[in-house]
């Protein structure tokens, strides 16, 4: 599909918007529909789209595989770390009230980090699955 000019131009135009929309869904999840899971999936879909049009190597350049792998684990760690931050600041596990100056801003901060963790893990796993599936056909001869 790399040689189709219409697909290339449309992908070039759309991918930035998809990534920005993912960020919007991530940070606007407090006020409108959305949140970490949706944002992670949309970001992953944008990169999958890019890799479909411009080839797997371009996708790897945009989101290198080692970063994607680190993202999978980092998301869970961020989520669990938010819980431990609650303990260290004198609350219970995953207790956000102690994270800010007053309970409401603490809740905001806690939800923000938790959603960030979810988004990291989800988009990491989606991208990694895509890379693994598409990478399978790459070295067929040496089996």
């Amino acid at each position, binding site marked *: 599909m790399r040689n189709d000019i219409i697909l290339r131009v449309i992908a070039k135009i759309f991918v930035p918007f998809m990534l920005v929309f993912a960020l919007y*869904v991530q940070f606007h*999840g*407090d*006020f*409108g*529909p*959305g*949140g*970490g*899971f*949706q944002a992670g*999936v*949309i970001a*992953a*879909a944008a990169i*999958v789209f890019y890799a*479909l049009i411009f080839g797997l190597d371009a996708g790897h350049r945009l989101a290198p595989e080692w970063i994607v*792998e680190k993202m*999978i*684990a980092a*998301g*869970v760690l961020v*989520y*669990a770390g938010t*819980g431990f931050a609650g303990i260290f600041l004198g609350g219970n596990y*995953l207790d*956000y009230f102690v994270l800010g100056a007053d*309970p*409401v*801003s603490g*809740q*905001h901060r*806690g*939800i923000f980090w*938790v*959603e960030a*963790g*979810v988004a990291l*893990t*989800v988009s*990491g*796993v*989606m991208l*990694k*699955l*895509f890379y*693994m*599936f*598409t*990478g*399978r*056909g790459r*070295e067929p001869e*040496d*089996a």
Partner: protein
Amino acid sequence: MAVTVFAMALQRNLFSAVVLFGLYSFFMATVLVALDAVDVAMTEAAVGAGVSTVLLLGALYLVGGTEAKPLHRPLIPLTLAIAVGVVLAYGMQGLPAFSDAQAPIHTHVAPRYLQESMKETGVPNVVTAVLASYRGYDTLGETVVVFTAGAGVIALLRRRRKDAK
């Protein structure tokens, strides 16, 4: 949607089955929007119709496009599916009516979430407040499940690649 499902089941060409599956996901997302579950609808559209269609097409590229002839007659699975469907339909008779405000699910914790979550968390979207704050442990568990699934796939597919070398 029912037409899509029947077409999918009768389809021998796996490629069209995958495309129909994506179509079904979009229908499902529309239904979820109609039910005011916009968060779930976004997920369904992005995962069900987008990413999983791409993954299935990637798998099709590896295994080829036509379904193998079934080894057995489909009578026993068909009977089982119909029996389970009948049991489920029977169970649905006991559910409260659709959008019944007095249903048990709406009288337990839901009113408290709806009335207090703005005061307690300052987050206008109740779905986000429940998901990330009140049900923080559940969401942590879900994230770990997604992590485990990814790790499992990595473990499965990567070893195969090493063998090949």
